[in-house]
């Protein structure tokens, strides 16, 4: 098994606010991320695909194909957007790094037809990131 990783960056803004919480509770739980005007990050996304290289091409999958998938599914949807309002997949969710990574997993997983999506790693800052492994085998899904 070979693991191939491609990295992209996108910049977006968000804010954390749960309408079911009071103003004070939102401020207490989400801190400065609750600023109603939002704030932004330069996100770095690493997408890892696992597979066996095709003996004819030596490739797990065509990098160009992966690049195009990332452009369509992630960059076009999220780059220079306000994630709360402009990304329907995140509607009704708090756009934390956890939720964005899970949304990206769900967007990419069906599009990867050669090899299989192994990991989505999303950096919100260089010191904070989330690894998403999907629901495969049901392993750890509830943890």
């Amino acid at each position, binding site marked *: 098994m070979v693991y191939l990783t491609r990295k992209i960056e996108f910049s977006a803004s968000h804010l*954390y606010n*749960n309408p*079911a*919480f009071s103003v004070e509770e939102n401020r207490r*739980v*989400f*801190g400065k991320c609750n600023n109603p005007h939002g704030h932004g990050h330069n996100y770095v996304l690493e997408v890892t695909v696992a597979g066996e290289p095709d003996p004819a091409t030596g490739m797990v999958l065509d990098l160009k194909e992966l690049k195009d998938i990332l452009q369509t599914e992630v960059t076009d949807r999220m780059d220079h957007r306000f994630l709360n309002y402009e990304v329907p997949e995140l509607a009704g*969710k*708090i*756009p*934390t*790094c*956890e*939720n964005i*990574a*899970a949304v990206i*997993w769900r967007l990419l997983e069906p599009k990867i037809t050669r090899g299989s999506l192994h*990991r989505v790693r999303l950096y919100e800052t*260089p*010191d*904070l*990131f*989330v*690894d*998403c*492994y*999907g*629901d495969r085998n049901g*392993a*750890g*899904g*509830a*943890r």
Partner: protein
Amino acid sequence: MKLHLARRYRFSASHRLHNPQFGEEENRRLYGKCNNPYGHGHNYVVEVAVSGTLDPATGMIANLEDLDAFVDREVIEPFDHKYLNEEVAVFRDTVPTTENLCIEIFNRLRRFSAARLERVLVEETGKNSFEYSGETAGANT
């Protein structure tokens, strides 16, 4: 959906690699310049990964403020700007290699109650790092 939340922290500390059961020569041969009797220091980076149920109300596995406060109390506060050999009890009789440091940090952080500790990675310098997931792990990645 299996999610790990990871966060990087920093502390600076000094140590000396020396095993009193070995002779002077053997220590020098084994640990090289890390055996310098005066010790030396590093800027350590600690990467902590936790997993847990995603709370739909907050969109979070664990509140970062809770994790930060816990890591600060258990690791950063007791280790930062310290001489590990003398000032951290476990290293009075365990050689403070970064392997052992990584295990000690994991054992301290596994008590975090708001999420499950998955992995601790310690970078001693930008060129070497050590990773520990506990004795029973290995099925996660």
